[in-house]
């Protein structure tokens, strides 16, 4: 095979690639990150690059598809990097890539988390820290170090069987001697899957444990002992740092899942992961997200502890707080590099996330999730350690991946069902997670049914002409004057508007509907006296922001967007009507609607009912819970009984596969209307 030189204008040195290499691969080789929101399927058009030079240069790149590129773009040499194959030496111009912005947290307060009432680390928690004093060996007592440690532990706690990894076993002798036979052990009581009643009793009744950490000396009882509750969302990864001794959430942090650049929805990511080194790249990307967040929360927690703020920490370039240093040691010389990082104080992690995210985190092939008959490789993942998962916490830390139910009902839903209290009430409740996949659970403490429907990413701002995520500049609410058809908008971060986020789209759709800008079928009414309804490049559209209002282009919603939103809301509504039908429970007997998902927090109920996204019931029945998945992971992290409850939920949930049920399509077309074809389901909308 022939090698070709590919020169990207943003990088000094050209790269050498063989014939047939995709431009995305060549860019990757050169160290350039090209966004591929569709997973490299050539559908989204966001990876467009420009071939520089004349026709000769152009012929060095063979384009398999130019979907989403205009004829003018193609004439100017633009190609889709994921669809363009290198066949000769070529120079490439890389246009500025859209930058991912971090979700603003300033105006959207961090969730207040209540420590579960009655949390007692000596009963609920599986992680224990035990100070041990061993009898030193002598010529009279030549017992080996490991047996000596076990004996001391048995005498102190009654634990008879202790497991340990090889790497920790290597440390035991030196640590025992360094501490002069006084040590502190961190244990994980391994009773998962066993009878939980045992946990009601004190530690001494337990039989078996795993040694996670052994430190020289007796560590002060208030030294940090942390756990991490993690939710891997398709869009956002959330990490809570938890003090296992008090149960308190010490820090929270969230950022975009770095996999987004390799696919915006789970299907695109599975496709990306199935190609070449895609699976490893996906694993690495999500680990970068999680580990970055872990580092961030630990840094903040440690600096708080040392009364040093982030900025000072950065400018002084002090090393992070190290293990076992009580506040009093602050004046001591800085910790040496040999000492373990503060993230080592995290000795347990509990992870929620949808089935695809869980597979990709663990590097387990996920293709079967996408293909009929849609099965996962594993729903109940066995206990793992941080070393094998490569989480940047204590290498021996217990990693607990929460169980899922099916390909499209994962641990985020089982954890959410727990934290929402769905499974713990006599009331029939509907729990829904509004996202790219609309997962819905219906049930009570007696029974649970669930389904997932592909709503598409419209509510997350994707697949919409001027859609964006809920970041600075996103229009999050719209009001339309019913006489003049002039809109008023509210923008996140008080910035110039850039596009619509999910809540803004729901708001806009509802306003357009009630003011008659669109009819019940989503068609624009061109006979209204306003210039805002016009024919654009993609058909009819309604202009919300004119370019001269401080933005460089008109921000409009097109009829294609309206159709996408209608389909998304119809899929979600149809999901729960099918669930209700499947168990013979009329929707009006549902007493509570529990709405999860970070996005769920910002939905305006009135508008969501007006467009038929949410069922028409009294507003007090709706409960917005925020990120229920990470909350469920937090409960499971603290309390083994809650962990057992999630396993119970996962095994009790009956999964209804909508693609195997023709009633879904009927329900879907019926819901593909504003608010619904059956107006009797929306009396409050009909009456308004």
């Amino acid at each position, binding site marked *: 095979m022939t090698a070709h030189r590919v020169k990207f204008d943003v990088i000094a040195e050209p790269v050498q690639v063989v014939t047939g290499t995709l431009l995305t691969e060549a860019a990757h080789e050169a160290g350039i990150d090209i966004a591929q929101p569709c997973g490299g399927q050539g559908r989204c058009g966001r990876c467009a690059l420009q071939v520089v030079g004349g026709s000769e240069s152009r012929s060095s790149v063979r384009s398999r598809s130019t979907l989403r590129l205009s004829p003018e773009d193609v004439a100017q040499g633009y190609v889709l990097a994921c669809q363009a194959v290198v066949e000769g030496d070529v120079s490439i111009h890389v246009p500025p890539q859209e930058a991912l912005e971090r979700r603003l947290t300033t105006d959207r307060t961090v969730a207040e988390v209540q420590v579960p009432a009655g949390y007692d680390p000596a009963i609920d928690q599986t992680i224990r820290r035990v100070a041990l004093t061993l009898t030193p060996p002598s010529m009279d007592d030549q017992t080996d170090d490991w047996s000596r440690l076990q004996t001391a532990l048995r005498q102190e706690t009654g634990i008879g069987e202790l497991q340990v990894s090889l790497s920790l076993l290597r440390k035991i002798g030196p640590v025992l001697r360094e501490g002069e036979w006084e040590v502190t052990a961190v244990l994980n009581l391994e009773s998962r899957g066993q009878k939980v009643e045992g946990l009601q009793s004190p530690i001494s009744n337990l039989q078996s444990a795993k040694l996670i950490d052994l430190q020289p000396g007796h560590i002060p009882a208030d030294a940090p002992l942390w756990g991490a509750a993690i939710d891997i969302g398709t869009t956002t990864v959330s990490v809570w740092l938890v003090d296992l001794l008090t149960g308190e959430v010490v820090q929270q942090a969230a950022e975009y899942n770095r996999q987004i650049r390799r696919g915006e929805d789970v299907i695109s990511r599975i496709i990306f992961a199935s190609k070449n080194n895609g699976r490893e790249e996906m694993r690495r990307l999500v680990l970068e997200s999680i580990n970055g967040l872990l580092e961030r929360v630990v840094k903040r927690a440690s600096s708080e502890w040392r009364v040093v703020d982030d900025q000072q920490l950065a400018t002084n370039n002090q090393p992070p707080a190290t293990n076992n240093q009580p506040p009093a040691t602050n004046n001591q010389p800085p910790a040496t590099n040999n000492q373990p990082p503060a993230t080592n104080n995290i000795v347990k992690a509990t992870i929620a996330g949808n089935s695809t995210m869980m597979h990709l985190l663990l590097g387990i092939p996920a293709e079967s999730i996408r293909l009929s008959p849609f099965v996962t490789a594993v729903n109940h993942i066995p206990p793992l350690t941080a070393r094998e998962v490569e989480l940047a916490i204590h290498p021996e830390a217990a990693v607990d991946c929460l169980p899922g139910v099916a390909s499209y009902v994962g641990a985020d839903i089982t954890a959410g069902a727990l934290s929402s209290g769905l499974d713990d009430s006599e009331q029939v409740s509907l729990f829904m997670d509004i996202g790219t996949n609309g997962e819905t659970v219906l049930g009570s403490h007696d029974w649970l049914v669930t389904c997932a429907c592909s709503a598409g990413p419209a509510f997350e701002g994707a697949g919409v002409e001027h859609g964006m995520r809920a970041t600075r500049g996103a229009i999050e609410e719209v009001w339309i004057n019913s006489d003049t058809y002039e809109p008023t908008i509210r923008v996140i971060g008080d910035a110039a508007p850039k596009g619509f986020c999910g809540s803004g789209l729901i708001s806009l759709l509802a306003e357009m509907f009630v003011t008659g800008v669109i*009819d*019940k*079928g989503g*068609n624009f*009414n*061109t*006979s209204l006296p306003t210039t805002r309804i016009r024919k654009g490049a993609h058909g009819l559209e309604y202009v919300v922001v004119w370019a001269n209002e401080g933005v460089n282009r008109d921000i409009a919603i097109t009829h294609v967007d309206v159709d996408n939103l209608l389909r998304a809301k119809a899929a979600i509504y149809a999901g729960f009507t099918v669930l209700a039908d499947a168990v013979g429970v009329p929707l009006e007997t549902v007493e509570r609607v529990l709405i999860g998902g970070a996005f769920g927090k910002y939905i305006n109920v009135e508008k969501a009912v007006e467009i038929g996204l949410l069922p028409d019931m009294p507003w007090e029945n709706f409960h917005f819970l925020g990120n229920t998945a990470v909350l469920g992971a937090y409960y499971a992290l603290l309390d083994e009984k809650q962990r057992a409850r999630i396993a119970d939920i996962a095994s009790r949930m009956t999964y209804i596969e909508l693609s195997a049920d023709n009633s879904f399509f*009927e329900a879907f*077309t*019926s819901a*593909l*209307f504003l608010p619904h*074809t059956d*107006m009797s389901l929306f009396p409050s909308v009909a009456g308004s």
Partner: protein
Amino acid sequence: MPVQIPKDKWPGQVRVATIGATEADGGTRTSVITVGGEKALPFMHFEAEMPYRPVIALEIKDRKPDDWSPLLLETWGEAMDAPGAWAKAAEAAGADMLQLSLSLTGVDGEPNTPDKAVTAVQSVLNSSGLPLAVFGPGQKEADNELLVPVAEATKGERIALGICEDKNYRTIVATAMANDHLVTARAPMDVNLSKQLNILITDMGLPLERIIMDPTTGALGYGIEYGYSVMERLRLAALQGDTMTQLPMIVTPGFEAWKAKESKVGTGVPAAWGDWLERAINWETLTAVALLESGADILVLRHPESVRRVRMAIEELMEAEELRLATGN
């Protein structure tokens, strides 16, 4: 022991619609058609009344079509050259009603114009006293451009204007409202979509009595089962009291059946298929009769012989109703 025949009792009833207006009602028609009013499934006369018999319309065009079967061209002959003559021939063939389809282009290949369309419709009205439905060429812009002047020129005739679809209904409905006409509303073989379109149209203010719904159907062997099932479910919903489905139904078995290979092709087919003309007429007739059984109120046909045969079927199916009325049961 006497046998008890179980009878269903339905809470709902199909609305009654009248197409065409006589001089007394502000039009020029010598006859009108009235359809709907069913209180039971089709021809279940022992359960409840079926006050109006289904009617047969013949499809004619504003010019000689390029894509019709040679069998039809032979049958209608020179009448096809002028819409008025064709209308007269269709009335003579026994139609209750005419359905005029406007073409996108004339025989000369030039685009149809509002003037030409109005002239064609007026010559049909002048040549025949039958009530009329007028369908546009089936392209959004052309439909709106041609149907509005036609509706205005024929104000008060109670023509059924078509075809309203979910992506193009506003203009047609608005002109129907302004000029005292009706509309036909076509949805692609789906109960929900039919219902949605009816809601959209009534939302504009056109009364339900002036909408005839077209559920779309397929020919025998080309999806008629699906169409049948959708019509049956629409009618069941209507009888159960769902207001937005309580409309008479118009179907176009002539258009569907004459698209089928069995009707279209006369050579190179197996000998066992038999006589071409007989087969083609059977195809149209059987399609139409099946739709009759699924609740069709207006059947649009193309061949005169099919009209004769379908009429026979309607007579027989309605006999029990005559009997019921006669005996007062």
